């Protein structure tokens, strides 16, 4: 065991709603108070506070950490905000674990808040700057693209049936029907409903996606001595792990989340879990999209690669299945106030392992569970293993307390939101200018000449597109330039029907990751053209269509698009 033992002794959450009347501070307070009440603690008993919240650009408050601090109970206390995108919710429990395990605090309040409704016209605007400013943003990517590209590649590799993937959305929305905090619980939803929902960016459809939400979740962590004093049913944090993949997402194997496996192996090793499929009894994998739950279950080593979808369709992951997954209802059913949704997964394990999950309680007496979240530019995995360790003394289901006290929040209709007294509307009236830097500048200059350049690392033997000044694996300067072909194959693609703010497109966009010939790790994001969308296939040979020389500007747009290439 690493450091001091740490237990969860209380959890609380607000309802997840589309628009809350409460400010972010007030949401954080409601969840924090509920968690303290559940642990029968006062704020004065808390030694330190760990907070998380996803991008500042959701709430529109730069420095969201200290803005939220009073609502998180941090007045006059050691306080830290950590942030790893969508992985933040689970990570803040890891931060809490650290703070207690290190001996610096005996009782820590972990708080996760998100208020996405402030961001207009659509919170996806907060994600526009996650793409590379020089070679991706000129293409106009939106967040749905990368999910669609990853889902398509996952489906293609294993020949998956979209019905099996849709069964995850059905399961989670049905599970959420029993959750008092849920935004999108629906007991009678079917796979047909999911498959008939609006196509956003093929293969992603409306009901494959979790909803925008406001909400907060809080957790009380305690040292062993404090935990034994506070409760006779502590739930121990047995293992923590986290891991980050390359930021060059077009170079990654989008089929399998290795970083989740790495994080899981770290957490399992600490927890002494050697056979996760036998030793994990309940799982809360991260499910912002239905395929992501399956992706993550494979990364968590709970199913063989490519096998989670058929298991889900067969009911293995149902609440009464062999391995209940997202019994809470997950992000797809309860809602997705991003950081809060991640911490909700830890709270759900706490309630499930204590037998306090009410209608959502999984059968039997689960003794160990795993929660996982994922985020940044689709590259971080955060994993926590929790368990009761000592067999539960109470009979199964003996207590069926609902999650703490549901204090709020008050949902606002769109009309009430628009009419609220004292409301202030502000444009984020700033502009950025990005210099491409030396290496990317040379790459862009070559595009103007109709050539695609790569850098090479002789230490690992890779030919790198996009080019970079240093090899991030060997951590040494790259060794020079080479030219790669302007031909390649479609690694994955999407057919996108909406803009970032969800306005329909008359002509769909065709984003694709192009694997360039001569590049060792893939290639880059671009668009397809001169092709019927229905004719596009993964693995299809393509070639760059260059703009006329006079129109080239030294931009990724000097390639107009990639089109199908005739091969002998």
């Amino acid at each position, binding site marked *: 065991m690493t450091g001091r033992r740490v237990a969860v002794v209380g959890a609380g959450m607000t309802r997840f709603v589309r628009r809350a009347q409460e400010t972010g501070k007030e949401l954080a307070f409601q969840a924090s108070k509920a968690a303290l009440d559940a642990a029968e603690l006062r704020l004065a008993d808390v030694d330190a506070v760990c907070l998380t919240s996803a991008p500042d650009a959701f709430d529109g408050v730069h420095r969201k950490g200290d803005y939220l601090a009073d609502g998180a109970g941090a007045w006059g206390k050691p306080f830290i905000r950590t942030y790893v995108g969508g992985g933040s919710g689970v990570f803040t429990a890891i931060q809490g674990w650290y703070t207690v395990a290190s001996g610096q605090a005996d009782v820590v309040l972990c708080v996760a808040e998100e208020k996405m409704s402030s961001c207009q016209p659509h919170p996806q605007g907060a994600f526009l700057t996650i793409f590379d400013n020089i070679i991706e943003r000129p293409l106009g990517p939106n967040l749905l693209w990368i999910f669609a590209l990853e889902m398509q590649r996952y489906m293609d590799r294993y020949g998956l049936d979209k019905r099996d993937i849709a069964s995850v959305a059905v399961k989670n929305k049905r599970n959420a029907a029993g959750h008092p905090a849920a935004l999108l619980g629906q007991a009678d939803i079917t796979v047909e409903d999911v498959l008939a929902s609006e196509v956003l960016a093929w293969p992603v459809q409306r009901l494959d996606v979790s909803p925008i939400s406001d909400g907060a979740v809080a957790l009380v962590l305690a040292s062993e001595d404090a935990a034994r004093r506070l409760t006779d049913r502590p739930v121990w944090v047995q293992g923590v792990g986290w891991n980050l993949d390359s930021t060059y997402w077009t170079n990654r194997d989008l089929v399998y989340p290795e970083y989740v496996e790495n994080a899981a192996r770290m957490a399992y090793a600490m927890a002494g879990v050697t056979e996760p499929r036998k030793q994990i009894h309940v799982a809360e994998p991260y499910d912002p999209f239905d395929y992501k739950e399956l992706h993550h279950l494979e990364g968590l080593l709970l199913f063989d690669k490519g096998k989670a979808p058929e298991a889900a369709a067969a009911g293995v992951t149902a609440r009464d299945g062999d391995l209940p997954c997202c019994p809470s209802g997950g992000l797809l059913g309860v809602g997705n106030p991003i950081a809060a949704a991640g911490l909700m997964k830890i709270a759900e394990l706490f309630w499930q392992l204590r037998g306090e999950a009410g209608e959502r309680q999984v059968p039997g007496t689960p003794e160990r569970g795993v929660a996982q979240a994922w985020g940044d530019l689709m590259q971080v995995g955060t994993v926590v293993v929790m368990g009761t360790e000592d067999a539960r003394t109470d009979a199964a289901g003996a207590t069926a307390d609902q999650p703490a006290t549901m204090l709020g929040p*008050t949902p606002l209709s769109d009309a009430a939101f628009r009419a*609220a007294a004292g409301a202030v*509307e502000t444009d984020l009236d700033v502009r950025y200018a990005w210099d491409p830097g030396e290496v990317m500048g040379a790459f862009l200059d070559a595009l103007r000449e109709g050539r695609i350049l790569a850098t090479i690392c002789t230490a690992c033997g890779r030919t790198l597109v996009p080019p970079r000044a240093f090899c991030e694996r060997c951590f040494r300067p790259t060794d020079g330039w080479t030219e790669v072909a302007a031909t390649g194959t479609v690694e994955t693609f999407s057919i996108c029907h909406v803009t970032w703010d969800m306005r329909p497109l008359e002509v769909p966009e065709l984003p694709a990751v192009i694997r360039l010939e001569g590049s060792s790790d893939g290639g880059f994001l671009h668009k397809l053209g001169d092709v019927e969308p229905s004719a596009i296939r993964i693995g299809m040979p393509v070639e760059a269509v260059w703009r006329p020389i006079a129109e080239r500007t030294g931009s990724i747009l000097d390639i107009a698009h990639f089109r199908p290439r005739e091969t002998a």
Partner: protein
Amino acid sequence: MPVSFRYTPGVGNTAFFEALRDRGVFLGSRCADCAVTYLPARIFCERCFASLTPDIECGPEGVVVSWTVAHVGIDGERLDPAVTYCLVQLDGADTVLLHRLLGQADIGARVRAMLSEDRTGAIGDLQGFAPA
């Protein structure tokens, strides 16, 4: 970035703005245990996490805690005339409010809130503080 933000005032500030608009009063909330009155009103005490009710009227007079004269705007442009801002602790409140100082008043001087005739329920309903 092509995004804008719409900030709604939340539960505590809604009570504050509605009282300012409808009754021309400054509404705070008091934590008796901590002996602190927060202005504007909050729904919880940040010191002890007690739930609070927005029901304490403060002001309309108070004391200047600090002030500054701004000669430069946020884009670096010169402000002509310069604008004076102050922190005022309204009578009955333990926290201070940031607003314009209309005229001159030094630290410790008493000032009075100057309200607009047509109030909408926004911080602009208060024009600023003038020497009492």
